């Protein structure tokens, strides 16, 4: 049993879900949250005006500023920037985790900074609450 945590762009969630469904992975938990990467959420450093994906990326920030991204005007000397992201939480037992990670990455790869990360974690145990099944049987 493996858990796959994928932090991806919010605009790519639908495509990713379709790609996962074609692999036979239909059970996914989605969180909407904020993230920042090696650039510290400072998107201005990595904007390439020739790339459409970045233009959309920038306008999205200005449309939905998070409270901490506006902190520059207040007491803080340095603003803290956050970028809206989606976190997909997938637990698999039969489908190999590497295959799921590959599928997520091939859909989300645009070549620009901010494409996200995929993490694979071990899962100790699982339980299907409805039936009380444990382990692999709870996931399938």
């Amino acid at each position, binding site marked *: 049993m493996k858990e796959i945590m994928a*932090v991806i762009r919010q605009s790519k969630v639908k495509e990713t879900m379709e790609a996962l469904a074609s692999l036979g992975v239909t059970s996914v938990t989605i969180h909407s*949250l*904020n993230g920042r990467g090696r650039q510290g959420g400072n998107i201005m450093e990595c904007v390439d005006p020739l790339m459409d994906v970045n233009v959309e990326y920038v306008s999205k920030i200005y449309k939905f500023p998070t409270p901490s991204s506006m902190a520059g005007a207040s007491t803080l000397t340095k603003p803290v920037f956050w970028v809206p992201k989606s976190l997909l939480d997938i637990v698999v037992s039969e489908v190999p985790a590497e295959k799921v990670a590959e599928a997520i*990455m091939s859909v989300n790869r645009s070549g620009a900074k901010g494409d*996200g990360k995929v*993490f694979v974690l*071990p899962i100790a145990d699982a339980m299907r609450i409805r039936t009380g099944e444990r382990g692999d049987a709870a996931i399938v």
Partner: protein
Amino acid sequence: MKIVRAIIRPEKEDDVVLALEGAGFPAMTKAHVFGRGKQKGLQVGPIHYDLLPKVLLLLVVNDEDVERIMSVIADNSKTGFIGDGKIFISDVERAYTVRTGEGL
């Protein structure tokens, strides 16, 4: 590699994030969550607050950086009162950058 899940006070979020950035860990994910601890929330007079707002920070880091990150988070989110939060560490088997497809 390890994943660090830190549940901290929302008002300490900016302090912790800036301190982590200063220590060389700018990359993280945050979620606004609700939780309660051993005290089952908060009792103020006749009013009981069951779930209190917290900020959850997720960082995936190398094994040798875990202790340093834990001390940075603890130093900057500590007030000494109940509700300061918890830090959880678990294993990560693989980590990929989507843009390049390579492991970290």
